[in-house]
């Protein structure tokens, strides 16, 4: 069997520095273990004969950078992932948001948007979608294009429907999309409430104030200093008493900004800004 290429630590640092200088994408504060795996995976996927040739390609073929960024970041997501999280949103968070005349929610690092659509469905069922705006941002322009179309693989719908039911959904999940061959196109009422834009959590600033920020399974890819910096950004971008939702293994507990937040429920990773 042919041995797969493995990028060395020093080659990784060199590449990340070069990419930052040339393209402005700063991966130097990403957790190395995961990042190296992504690079090795890309070396294999795109069949590069050597790390040197890979580096040359990245730096000389400018249109390749989008693929590079998209493959180095993780774009695995699903609708109603962790159903109990969505159940808490549905039963405990949305009733509080409902008291606002206007609801702004930020999905930071939303990838292809399965969680944004999940949220839109929750808002729709709570009769709040008409007064809501969902800001969907990601570092990758390519995944946002998918999000904008609202078209997802039909093969996933069975799993999503099960997640939806487990999250307390009472409707027929398939009524929210139109099936066409292998694809499910979601009702445009959901997409019409989404504002889609690229945003890099490493380098871009706060752009609005929100009542709820969802950023699930994004911080795990950052080193501790970058995590703290991004949590500061979220703090700045939240209204007083706003909510911050993280992934099931992410925590505010050890971050400096953590003292400004109180965990909303014991079980789910949802915090409320208290000062």
């Amino acid at each position, binding site marked *: 069997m042919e041995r797969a290429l493995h990028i060395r630590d020093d080659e990784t640092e060199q590449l990340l520095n070069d990419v930052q200088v040339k393209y402005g994408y700063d991966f130097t504060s990403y957790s190395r273990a995961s990042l190296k*795996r992504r690079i090795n995976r890309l070396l294999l996927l795109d069949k590069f004969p050597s790390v040197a040739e890979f580096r040359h390609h990245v730096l000389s073929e400018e249109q390749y950078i989008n693929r590079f960024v998209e493959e180095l970041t993780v774009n*695995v997501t699903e609708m109603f992932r962790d159903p109990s999280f969505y159940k808490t949103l549905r039963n405990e968070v949305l009733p509080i948001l409902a008291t606002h005349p206007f609801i702004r929610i930020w999905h930071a690092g939303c990838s292809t948007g399965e969680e944004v659509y999940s949220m839109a469905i929750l808002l729709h069922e709570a009769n709040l979608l008409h007064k809501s705006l969902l800001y969907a941002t990601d570092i990758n322009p390519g995944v946002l294009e998918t999000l904008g179309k609202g078209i997802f693989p039909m093969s996933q719908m069975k799993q999503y429907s099960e997640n939806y039911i487990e999250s307390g959904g009472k409707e027929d999940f398939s009524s929210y999309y139109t099936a066409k061959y292998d694809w499910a196109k979601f009702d445009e009422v959901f997409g019409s409430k989404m504002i889609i834009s690229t945003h890099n959590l490493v380098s871009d600033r706060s752009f609005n104030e929100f009542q709820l920020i969802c950023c699930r399974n994004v911080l795990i890819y950052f080193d501790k200093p970058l995590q703290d910096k991004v949590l500061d950004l979220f703090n700045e971008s939240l209204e007083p008493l706003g909510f911050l939702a993280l992934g099931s293994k992410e925590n505010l507990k050890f971050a400096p900004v953590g003292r400004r937040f109180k965990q909303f429920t014991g079980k789910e990773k949802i915090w409320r800004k208290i000062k």
Partner: protein
Amino acid sequence: MEKDKVRSSCCLAVIGGSAGSLDAILKILPCLNTGAAYAVVIVQHRKPLQDSPLADILSDKTGWSVKEVEEKETVTPGTVYIAPADYHLLFETDHSFSLDASEKVNYSRPSIDVTFESAADVYGSSVIGILLSGANADGVEGLQKIRDAGGICIVQDPATAEVSYMPAEALRRLQPDLVLPAEGIGMYLNAI
């Protein structure tokens, strides 16, 4: 001679298992003497339930502290760590844990191959890889990586495994240092 050198420098034992491996883990853990100079990391395929009782079940069986891994936590000797469901478990060069929610590998997340490979990459010859009962071949490639890095490879004796496919596949594809029943694995770890 070289083996003894490797053994004395062990600071991490990574145990991978799938179907039928709980039984083996429940035999290994009670054997382990407390106060050891290495950490144990368990990667077991299981359903992505949020409240996993696995840590509680294992806690009852050993004097070691048993916990599910928290993101960026430092690997501390004398602790049994469990890979959280639905995340791959990786090691950073500063010997802390990283989690990764990327694509499944061998239809699995956590994947044993992913953790074994990362352990080999970071710990090199100071890691012991242990592959237990299971119904797929996840972990075999990773075990080879541990071997290539100079670590020790142990495979549960397929005859003693509840589901023999995984250890048998390892024996078919590589030459482990040791083939042992679960109790034997516990005794081996105590001797390092």
